[in-house]
Each structure stands twice: as C-alpha cells, then as structure tokens.
C-alpha cells in the first residue's frame, strides 16, 4: 500500500534529485516558512520560554537516567490498570505482537492513529503481509497512504504535497479502498477534509481493533498520552473494542505532573498553537467505557543502543515536535525523502545513526547532511544540541573506517592537512607553494571577482565541487605570515 525507504541512495545523491523537483521546492518553502513563523510568534508570547525548555529537558533527562526503574513502574501501573504489557526488542518482535493481537480477534483490518513508532517499525507492511489492512486515519498520513507515497515530515507527512495533488490522489484512490471521493471534489481545504471525513467515518465505525503510538507514557499512573489536532486519534482510541499502542521506551516520564512542561512546550513548538486541540489520556481499561482490551508494546529497536552513547543519548529526549525540521535550511530545500527514513531533518540525521549504527552508507551520510548552522538547537523545546551530536556522529562514521585497508581519499586528505597544520613551518611551506600558484593564476586568470581580485573559474577534479557554481579567489602571492615577516607586522610603514 505504501512505499518503502529501503534501498534509498546516500543523502547527497537523493538530495540532488530532490533539489531538481520544482513542485517540492515550492511546497516545502511555503509550508516550512508558514509553520516557522507561526511557531516563532507563539513562542515569543511565553516570557519564561527558556526556563520551560530547561524544565522540559530536565523531565526527559531524569526519565532517561533511571530508565529501567521507570519502565518497571510503568509496566506495574499498566498491569494494575488492566492493560497487557509486551516488550519488543526490535521491529520484527513488535510487528509480530500487533499481528497476533489482530489475529486473535480474527480481524482483517485495523484503524491507526498516526504514530512515528509504527512507521519506524514498518507495521503497515508487516500487517499487510499477514493479510491485515492498516488504515491510516490522520489526514496527512491518509494522503501518503493513498498516494503510495512516503512520509516526508514528522508532523505533516504529506508536507511535500499541495492541495491540487491531494485532490488528485483522493479522486483516483479513495474509491479503491472504501468510500470514494465525491464527483464534484475541488481542492478547497474544507472540501478535501470533508471527503476524508466521510471516507474515514466508515472505517472508524467498522473497526474492531485500533493501533496507536503515544507521545508520553506516565510511569506512576500507567497513563498513555496521545496529542493530535484532528480528532481522528480520539475516534481510534475510543471506538474500537481493542487498542494496541506501540510505545518507544524513551516516551516514559516519571509522574503525571511531568506532563506539565511537556504539554506546554509541544503544541507551540510543533503546530504553533497555544494549546493542543485533542489531548487523549487513558490508563489501561475502564469497564464499560472505551476499549475493553488494551495492549501496550514497549519498543526498544535501537533505543538502548542510543542510550549508551554519552553524547548522542540526548536525542532520546526528542518529543517529535518537528520544529527542527521546519527551521532547517537543508530540510527546507531537499525535503524529507532524501533522508531515507521516517525520521527526516536534523533529528533524523542524528537519530537514525544512533538507533542503527553507521555501518551502511546511507545512514553514514546523514550526519553530514547539515551545514551545522545551529538553527535546530535554537528551537528544540528539549534543548537537544543537535549540531554537537552531528559532529560526534561524524566522528563515529570516521572511526568506523579507521581499520579500512584502503583509506578513503578524504581520510588521506585530512591526515595530510593535520600533518601540515601541526607545524607552522610545514604550513608556511604549503603557503609558499600556494602563493606561487596564485602568481600563475593572477597572470592567466580570465575571471575577476567583483572588487578586482583574480579568480579561478571552473576547475577540474575535486575542485569542481566548489567551482561548479562558485568562483574561487586566486591565492594571494604573499601569505599573511610572509607579510608579517617582511614588514615586521606592518611596522616598517607599509601597512598594506
């Protein structure tokens, strides 16, 4: 039903293709800027925003510090409240648990409230292989699913689509899987939402089993929390008889009151709203009200691996608000698919290598998918220092290649640079050579930079990466160091 990220090329290649997609560029530039401005406006209203961020980071940090204890408490509270708790080490185990619950009830379909964890483990595909259809009920997720597409944003999975494209997808695909779109469907947002509503209502009323994730799991009360804006989540969580929630183990917070900073930080950071429209909380089973069979699947799938990383573990504080995506200049231009994961953008660039390691080339390319501008850290509600983790993950990539029999050209170049830079004498020698090149270029160059300096135009070889689109100033004939020596730091009167 939907696509897969398996086999995606490394980031630079995927990005090159995405950059050429004019519709994508336009849609993303518009959408990210709109959300970005909205967020900035509502965050500016909060006087103690910085304190709130510190508090939010502290809540998650405290939970991670004693993760095992909190998880045991959570399990005990959930069981006491009538829920069944399952532990899943990886994606396969988690998917098998959900499938077996569905099989037990003899259903061939489940409704889903959008969840990053179930996207991460590829639940829909796994269920499909077992003959169970999983219907996404979040509007954007529905668009992705109907379009045989891949999500490209944490919060707005169909951010790369505009409304004309959405109309097309609804018209062509809705009828294949349920109630068709009305014949007179236009691309008016209200009409598109109406078509989705009618289509989904049928599925909500029919489904016996629902699948969700959770934004938070409160250990002391055994409460799961889902934060959403459409109300479809509330339908999934209350209508069907059976509810299975797949929850990453890093979602745990110690106490009910820990939700306070989190629920204030999340809506402003993610949708730019002051308060979240639909916040659902449930603790196990309430007799006669809502689902009468509640399962919770606690998912590791690389999280303990990330937790063991001294620098990177802070990524587990992430509350998936997507603020970092919306401000990221790289994400804004290449979109989410280029990251080859359900977790795109700055958080994806660190989370994927932390969860999965850097052995494969695609994942190893992600920490480099950033100019380290730091805009992500500035907006992150739980103060994840993404640039520092990016650099640390780059080091993990480099370290994983230290045993290579044939070192990469980059490694050779870096070793040579380090050798040159560890001695001023060697650097001076290199600069004299570059001064010579500068003299030659100065004489023969046909390119002149604005202001008059000679430049190199298009160069072949490795320099082409630079000069393909950028002129390069010719090296000066005299380095600063040589000038200082010759003029005694300009004190001989020749200041220039």
């Amino acid at each position, binding site marked *: 039903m939907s696509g897969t990220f398996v086999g995606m090329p490394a980031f*630079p290649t995927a*990005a*090159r293709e995405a*950059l050429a997609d004019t519709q994508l560029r336009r849609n993303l530039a518009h959408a990210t800027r709109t959300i970005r401005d909205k967020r900035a406006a509502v965050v500016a209203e909060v006087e103690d925003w910085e304190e709130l961020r510190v508090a939010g980071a502290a809540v998650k940090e405290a939970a991670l510090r004693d993760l095992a204890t909190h998880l045991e408490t959570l399990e005990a509270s959930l069981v006491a409240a009538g829920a069944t708790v399952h532990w899943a080490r990886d994606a396969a185990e988690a998917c098998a648990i959900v499938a077996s619950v569905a099989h037990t009830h003899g259903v061939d379909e489940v409704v889903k409230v959008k969840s990053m964890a179930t996207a991460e483990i590829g639940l829909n595909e796994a269920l499909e292989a077992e003959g169970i259809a999983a219907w996404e009920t979040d509007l954007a997720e529905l668009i992705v699913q109907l379009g045989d597409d891949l999500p490209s944003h944490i919060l707005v999975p169909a951010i790369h689509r505009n409304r004309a494209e959405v109309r097309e997808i609804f018209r062509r695909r809705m009828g294949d899987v349920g109630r068709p779109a009305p014949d007179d469907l236009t691309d008016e947002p209200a009409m598109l939402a109406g078509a989705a509503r009618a289509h989904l209502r049928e599925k909500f009323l029919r489904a016996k089993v629902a699948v969700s994730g959770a934004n938070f799991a409160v250990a002391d009360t055994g409460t799961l929390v889902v934060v959403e804006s459409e109300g479809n989540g509330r339908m999934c969580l209350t209508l069907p008889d059976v509810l299975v929630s797949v929850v990453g183990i890093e979602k745990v917070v110690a106490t009910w009151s820990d939700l306070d900073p989190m629920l204030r930080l999340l809506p402003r950071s993610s949708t730019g709203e002051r308060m979240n429209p639909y916040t659902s909380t449930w603790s196990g089973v309430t007799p006669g009200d809502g689902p009468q069979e509640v399962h919770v699947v606690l998912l590791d799938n690389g999280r303990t691996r990330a937790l063991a990383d001294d620098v990177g573990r802070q990524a587990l504080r992430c509350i998936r608000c997507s603020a970092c995506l919306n401000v990221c*200049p*790289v994400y804004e231009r*290449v979109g989410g698919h280029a990251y080859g994961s359900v977790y795109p953008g700055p958080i994806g660039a660190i989370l994927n290598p932390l969860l999965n390691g850097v052995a494969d080339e695609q994942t190893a390319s992600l920490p*480099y998918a950033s*100019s*380290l*501008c*730091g*805009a992500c850290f*500035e907006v992150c509600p739980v103060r994840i220092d993404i640039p520092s983790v990016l*650099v*640390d*993950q*780059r*080091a993990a990539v*480099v370290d994983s290649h230290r045993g290579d029999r044939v070192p990469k050209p980059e490694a050779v170049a*870096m070793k040579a*640079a*380090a050798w040159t*830079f*560890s*001695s*001023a004498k060697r*650097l001076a020698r*290199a600069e004299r050579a*570059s001064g010579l090149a*500068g003299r030659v270029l*100065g*004489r023969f160059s046909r390119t*002149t*930079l*604005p*202001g*008059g*300096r*000679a*430049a190199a135009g298009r160069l072949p070889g*490795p320099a082409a*990466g*630079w000069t*393909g*689109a*950028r*002129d*390069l*100033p*010719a*090296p*000066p004939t*005299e380095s*600063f*160091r040589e*000038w*200082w020596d010759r003029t005694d*730091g*300009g004190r001989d009167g020749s200041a220039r």
Partner: protein
Amino acid sequence: MRVALQVTCVNDAMFPDTGKAVVRLLRRLGVEVDFPQAQTCCGQPMVNTGYLDEAVPVVRAFVDAFAGYDAIVTPSGSCAGSARHQHSIVADRSGDPALVAAVAETGPRTYELSEFLVDVLGVTDVGAYFPHRVTYHPTCHSLRMLGVGDRPTRLLEAVRGIELVDLPNATECCGFGGTFALKNADTSVAMGADKARHVRDTGAEVLVAGDNSCLMHVGGMLSRQRAGVRVMHLAEVLATTEDTEGGSSGPAVGERAGDRA
C-alpha cells in the same frame, strides 16, 4: 594586556588583507597585537568532518602558540567558536590532562573580533569611513555558537559614510558549512543561491560578514552571477579610514592579485 592575533589558516593563506586590516585597526585603537608565528589552524576542518584524532596535534599547536596571552583575537566567528566550544572535545579525546587544562585556559580567552572591540576595548565607533551601500550577513557560528548579537551591526552603524541596509532572512545559513560545501555541494549551492538573491535584493554594493569562508562561498556565487556585489570582511571595513579609502573608488578595485608585491 598581551594580545595575540589568531589570523586563521583561511585568512593566512587566502585572505591576508583581513589579517592586515585587524592589525591596522587595533593599532589605531592603541592595541599592539603579536602574531605568534607558531600558529596554524584551530582544527575545525578536522573536527567538523569527524576526524577527532587528527585534530589533536592541531589543537595542541594552537594552545602552544597562544599560551600566556591575555586575549586571543580572531577575525572569524567560526574559529572563535571552535576554540571555545570544540577544543575541549578534542582534548578529552586525546586523554591528555595537560591538553585538557591548556584548552580550558585558551578557550575562554579567545574573542571574535567584534566581541573584542565591543566587550574588551569598549568601543563601537572605531573611527572608520566607508562611503558605500553595505549589507551585513550574520554568520551562523558568530550568531548561534558565540552569540555576538548586534555587536557587528553596532560597529558598522558607527562607520562614517556607510549606508547600511538590512539583509532579508539574514539569520538563515548561507550554505557554506565547511566540508558541507563539497560533500553536499548541490544543497550548499541551493542555500547559497537564496542567500545571494537576498543580497542582491538589498541593492548593496558590498556584502560584509565576520567570516571569510562564508564570504568565499556567497561571494563566489555572486561573482559567478556577475552580480556586481563584492564581499568584504568586517575587519576590512572597520580598518578603512578617509586616508586609506582615498576618495570614492573603494579599496582594491582594479588591483589584481598578481600586482601585489
């Protein structure tokens, strides 16, 4: 106060005029800087590409060269950020307590030029004269890693003759990003193209920033577009006076690199 100039490897090898401008500017303000000849690079190219072991001897060379100075001034937000925020990572990696102690000494004493002028010397009017239409790009590391805030623009506003215009979307990254510019050249260029467009929209003649590496990237694009906008380091603007400006033509116009002795 013993003040050292950390000119940076990029300026040393590619933009010596920026280093000369810092010397001239500080001398005018009564500060004689030393240029410790043992200096090389801050190690950032290695650190930001993930080569931490390779950065160890480079950081060692940095702390050796600048030991004993009260202040280390550098015309680069990025290199100041590297000394203040990344050297400790490299030192920890080396496992050498002496290096850990040494970077804890040099890091906090490293100032980006505008910080040194405004915070240490307490000046915003440095007596400069620059009669051109100028726009200023706050580079990411000076803005977010160091938090230089409005120091550079306060310095620019005090320059006589200058026509300073706001750059739209100023705080957005230009797309340089060190090795990012090569490893992800397409994305880097896409970002640079937007930055160049915003620069052109200002109608400025000169784009000013505190990091020559970012300027090399945006300037390289503007040059390729024959946009008629030149780039200039903040230090060079601040060092310019009525004597050196010599009328209206602006510094370095018509001067070819090869003509310089």
